[in-house]
């Protein structure tokens, strides 16, 4: 496995010993409702920590074609458009993230997607790991 840069937020991603990535969420004990991202100050009496499914289907998508304003955007000044989408992870929750693994016009609603690690460079040049979703290709499946 390639060495992953540190997660962009420790409460967002779980990386196991094999380098596999999982998204961290919280489940409200009383209602059973999943919350992503997990609340920063999650009261363990109210929430339990859960790992989200890694696969799902593309629910919607678009392309970010201009560089977002900084702040809040922390990426480098040089900009390349990127795809963004919502992926329905099993019957758990619909999560928003960057899309990768296909050309910008290569996404379609209902495509099978899986969670992947996404390298992210801060304006300072430091590297972080965030998450993205990529189409599950015949070969990978």
């Amino acid at each position: 496995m390639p060495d992953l840069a540190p997660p962009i937020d420790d409460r967002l991603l779980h990386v196991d010993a094999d380098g596999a990535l999982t998204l961290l969420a919280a489940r409200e004990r009383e209602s059973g409702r999943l919350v992503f991202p997990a609340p920063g100050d999650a009261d363990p009496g109210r929430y339990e920590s859960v790992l989200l499914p890694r696969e799902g289907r593309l629910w919607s998508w678009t392309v970010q074609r201009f560089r977002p304003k900084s702040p809040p955007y922390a990426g480098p000044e040089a900009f390349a458009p990127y795809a963004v989408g919502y992926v329905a992870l099993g019957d758990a929750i619909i999560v928003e993230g960057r899309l990768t693994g296909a050309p910008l016009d290569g996404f379609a609603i209902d495509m099978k997607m899986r969670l992947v690690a996404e390298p992210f460079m801060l304006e300072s040049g430091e590297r972080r790991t965030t998450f993205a979703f990529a189409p599950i290709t015949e070969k990978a499946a």
Partner: protein
Amino acid sequence: MSDVYIVGAGIHPFGRTQERTGLQQGVFAVRQALGRAGLDWRDIQFAYGGSDAAGKADTMVSELGLTGLPFINVANGCATGGSAMFGAYSTIKSGEFDLGIAVGFDKHPRGAFDPKPAEWGLPDWYGETGLMLTTQFFAMKIQRYMAMHGITNRTLAAVAEKAFANGALAGHAWRREPVDAETILSSTMVSDPLTKFMFCSPAEGAVALILASEAKAKSLGLPAVRLRAVAVRSRPPGSFEVFSPALDIARGLSPTSIASRAAYEMAGVGPEDVDLAQLQDTESGAEIMHMAENGFCADGEQQAWIAEGRTRIDGILPINTDGGCLACGEPIGASGLRQVYENYVQLTGQAGARQVTGDPRIGYSHVYGAPGVSAVAIVERA
């Protein structure tokens, strides 16, 4: 409990006015509303006002006169104008006062809004990695809607084409030149499937409305509309909103659909009774989806409605008769009141070149914004 009337309205032209602050534009709108109604600031018993980014409304008293009136500042994001009107409406309805004003104004810098994650209860990574953009939300909402309900890019373009055609006829609009559908479709892609001409831009402007009790409205004898309903609603479970890192699998209603139902019930009318509507059109797709969320048609019927021109000024349900946000731009604190201003002007027969014919009686307005709030007002010609 009194019925509530709008007896006067003023507007500062939308767009960019370098020489006036947002507050000065607000003062301009108040003075114009008073002047047109033949009223004096000293006649006004109370005020509600606000802006999202252009200062505190109550400081206007320095310009307008230190009459000691209660002036309540409203800060409710995209629903600031709608909430100011809700406050003024409730105050008169309760019988506390019988003549007041609601004012909304704003002045934003150029380009997309730049929200701060912490102010929205979100972690920094959401903004840092480039997910916190209103444009992405609108694009993804219409992208899915188009796939589910058979709406085409050409229909998106037709909505923007209509907005610019209507804006050309509205003195207060920012974009006063018609733009044809081909130009709209081939303009720069901002967030697929939405091009530059399909999005509104942050802008400047101000609107003031004078509200009166029934007895006061009768004694003044001014052109008036009766406010039959004002409903403000926040988001219900399972709605799809801006700045949502995740959505529940179980999908639900929207703040628009519940505000709309509440307003129809309050007014005792249905969508079939509405003669013209001003619907939140942050981008072309929003107008299309809001047609259904406000009950005017079923999901997917917009495709035929728009092809047949039913939402044009000469159609059976004219929508966004002054060009909406697409032609007027989006000064957050003023947009909701602009819609009511437009309905007031139309129903009192003062809309000039863009006047809806056929003696319109009921006007409907709907504003929507982050983080999931909608305000609906229904007015009737008095």
